[in-house]
C-alpha cells in the first residue's frame, strides 16, 4: 500500500516536471560516478567509456578550490551588479568593463611601485603596454612586493569608483526616470566606450603581469598559490565588510530600504540621491577590486577580460536571485564550482556551458533564484 502510493506520487512527479526529474537522475548518476572515481572503482561500459575511473582526492580538491577562487570573483563583482539592479532597476552591462578598469588601473599602480627604477614609469603604468621589463623582472607579487599589491587594490577601487560615478553623472542620472530598458541600452554604450578607451590607452595585447617566483609554496605535499590565498582573503574580507555595512550602518540600512521601496524611502526623508551615489561607489569599488584580484590569480591581463567575465557575473547574480547580495555570492560560488568541477567529465572547451546549464536548471525549479524574494537583506 505504502509502496504503491509512493510509486504513484513518483509517477506524478515525473509527469509534472519531467525535465527536473531527468536532471535529478543525471545529477545522481554524476554523483555516483564521482564517488566511484574517488574510490578508484572502474566499471567498463564500452571500449571508450566507463563508469567511474580514478580521480585523486587531491585533483578533486584542487578543482573545488579553483571553483571557490573564481566563484569569489564572480560573487564579488556580482554584489555591485545586484545592488545597482535593485536600487536603480536596471541591468548594468558596463559592469564587466568596470571590472577591467579596476584591473588596469590597479595593476598600473602595483607595477609602478614594484618595478620602480627598473623600467620606465610609462611602461609600468601602462601595465607593460610596450616593450620593456618582463613580469618577473618587475617583480609584482605578494612575495616580492606586498605593499605594491596592497596599493594596487586601493587604486583599483578608487579609480573604478571615479569612472563609475562619472558614468552615472554623465549618462545614467539624466535618463534615470526613463525606465530600465533605455538605461540598459545606454549601459551597453558605456561598456563599449569604456572597453575601447581601455584598449586605446593600454593596448590590445594579452600579457603577463604578476611575478611567479616564490608564489607557489609547498604545504603538506600540495602547492599553495599565495596569490589565490590573497584573493580569497581579500574577497571574503570585502564580502564581510559589505555585509556589515548593509546590516549595521545607517547608510547600509538606507540602501536596503531603497532597494525595498524607493517611493517610501523618499517620503521617509532618506536622501535618495546620496544613497544612489553611495551604491555606485560601493558597487564600483567591488567591481574594480574583483578585476584586480582576477588578474592577480590568473597572472595575465587583457582589455576585454571584464566583458568575458560579465556573462558569468550575470549568471551568478540571476542564479542567486537578482537584488540580493548574498544571492550574488552564493550564485557566484555555484557557478564557479560547476565551472571547475565539471572538468572531471567534460573538456575545458565546454565547461562554461555546464555552468549555464546549471543556472537554467536552478531557475526552472526556482524562477526567483536561490535567494529571490529575500531582497538585499
Amino acid at each position, binding site marked *: 500500500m505504502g509502496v504503491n502510493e509512493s510509486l504513484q506520487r513518483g509517477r506524478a512527479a515525473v509527469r509534472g516536471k519531467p525535465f527536473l526529474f531527468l536532471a535529478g537522475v543525471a545529477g545522481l548518476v554524476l554523483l555516483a560516478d564521482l564517488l566511484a572515481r574517488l574510490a578508484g572503482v572502474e566499471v567498463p561500459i564500452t571500449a571508450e567509456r566507463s563508469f567511474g575511473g580514478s580521480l585523486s582526492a587531491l585533483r578533486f580538491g584542487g578543482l573545488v578550490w579553483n571553483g571557490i577562487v573564481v566563484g569569489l570573483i564572480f560573487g564579488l563583482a556580482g554584489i555591485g551588479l545586484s545592488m545597482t539592479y535593485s536600487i536603480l532597476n536596471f541591468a548594468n552591462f558596463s559592469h564587466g568593463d568596470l571590472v577591467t578598469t579596476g584591473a588596469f588601473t590597479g595593476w598600473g599602480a602595483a607595477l609602478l611601485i614594484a618595478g620602480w627604477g627598473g623600467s620606465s614609469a610609462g611602461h609600468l603604468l601602462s601595465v607593460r603596454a610596450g616593450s620593456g621589463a618582463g613580469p618577473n623582472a618587475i617583480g609584482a607579487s605578494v612575495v616580492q612586493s606586498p605593499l605594491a599589491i596592497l596599493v594596487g587594490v586601493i587604486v583599483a577601487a578608487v579609480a573604478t569608483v571615479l569612472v563609475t560615478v562619472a558614468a552615472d553623472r554623465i549618462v545614467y542620472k539624466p535618463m534615470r526616470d526613463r525606465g530600465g530598458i533605455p538605461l540598459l541600452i545606454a549601459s551597453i554604450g558605456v561598456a563599449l566606450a569604456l572597453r575601447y578607451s581601455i584598449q586605446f590607452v593600454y593596448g590590445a595585447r594579452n600579457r603577463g603581469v604578476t611575478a611567479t617566483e616564490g608564489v607557489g609554496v609547498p604545504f603538506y605535499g600540495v602547492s599553495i598559490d599565495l596569490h589565490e590565498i590573497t584573493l580569497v582573503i581579500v574577497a571574503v574580507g570585502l564580502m564581510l565588510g559589505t555585509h556589515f555595512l548593509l546590516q549595521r550602518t545607517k547608510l547600509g540600512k538606507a540602501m536596503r530600504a531603497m532597494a525595498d521601496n524607493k517611493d517610501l524611502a523618499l517620503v521617509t526623508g532618506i536622501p535618495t540621491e546620496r544613497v544612489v551615489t553611495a551604491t555606485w561607489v560601493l558597487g564600483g569599488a567591488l567591481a574594480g577590486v574583483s578585476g584586480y584580484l582576477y588578474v592577480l590569480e590568473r597572472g595575465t591581463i587583457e582589455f576585454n577580460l571584464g566583458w568575458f567575465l560579465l556573462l558569468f557575473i550575470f549568471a551568478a547574480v540571476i542564479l542567486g536571485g537578482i537584488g540580493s547580495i548574498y544571492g550574488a555570492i552564493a550564485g557566484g560560488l555555484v557557478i564557479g564550482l560547476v565551472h571547475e568541477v565539471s572538468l572531471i567529465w567534460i573538456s575545458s572547451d565546454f565547461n562554461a556551458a555546464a555552468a549555464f546549464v546549471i543556472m537554467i536548471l536552478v531557475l526552472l525549479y526556482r524562477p526567483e533564484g536561490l535567494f529571490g524574494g529575500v*531582497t538585499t537583506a
Partner: protein
Amino acid sequence: MSAEDPEDAPAETIPDAEGDEVPSGDAAAEAGTGSDAGGAPDRDVDAESDPLAKVPDDVLLQVRDLDAGYGDLQILTDVDLDVGDGEYVTIVGPNGAGKSTVMKSVFGLTTYMGGTITFDGTEIHERAPEEIIHEGISYVPQNENVFDGLTVRENLEMGAYILDEVPEAQIEEIYDRFPVLRERSDQKAGTMSGGQRQMVAMGRALMLDPDLLLLDEPSAGLAPDLVQDMFDRIDRINDDGTAILMVEQNAKAALRRCDRGYVLANGENSYTDTGDRLLADEDVRQQFLGG
C-alpha cells in the same frame, strides 16, 4: 519670525481666502449665472455652513487655490484646506476625487501648478519631500508603506534618518504606543500581518514626533475588527497633540471621529464642516456616503 507668522497668518489670510472662494473659477461662474432654485446644491451648503468659519484660530497647514497633478495631468483645481494646530481633519469624497492627491501635494509628491501651501508660516509648495519632513510633517502612504526587508526596529530607525543619532527615547515611546512592535522588533516587517504593518508604518512616521501626520487610507486592507482599533489608535495620536490630515474610504467612521471634514469632488473641494454635521447633511449622505 516663525513664531509670529503662524499667529498672524490666520487673521490676515482667512478673509482673503474667503474672498477668493466666491469669485474664483467655477464658483464665480455659478455665482454669476446660478439662480437660487437649487440648481447647484453646493451653494446651499456653503450658505449654511460657512466653510472657513470652523477653522481654528491657530492654523498649522493652510492650502489656498492649489492646482496640482502628475506631469501634464491636472487633478486638483483651486483646492482650499486648513488644518489647525492639533486638529483632526479628514477628506472624504468619491473615488477619483483627488483625495490622495491633496495629501501627496502637501508632501511635495505631485507636480505643483499653482496656489500656495503654507505650513507653520513657511511656504512649502515647491519643496521636496525630504525638505518638508524637516518642517514637521510625516506621511503614511496607503500601500507598501513599510520596508519589507528591514526589521521593525530598522523601519523605525529609517523614520528618523534625518537625525544624527537614533532617538532611542522616541523608539521606546513608539513601542509603548504599539507594544506588539516591541515584541517583534527584530522581525522583518514584510512577514507581519496587515494591522501590524500599519502600526510599523505609523510608528515610522511618528519617529520625528511630527506636528502634522498625513494618513492615506489607514484602514485599507484591514479586517473589520481591526479597523476600529486602528481608528482608536489614531484618536490617541491626535489626543497627544499631533494634528492629523486623513483620507479615508471608510468615510462615515472617519467623519464620526474627526474634528472637521472636507468633501472633495472632481478635484475641487465643495464643503467643509464638522464631521458630525457633514454626516447629518442630506446632500453629503446621498452623494458621498451611500445614503
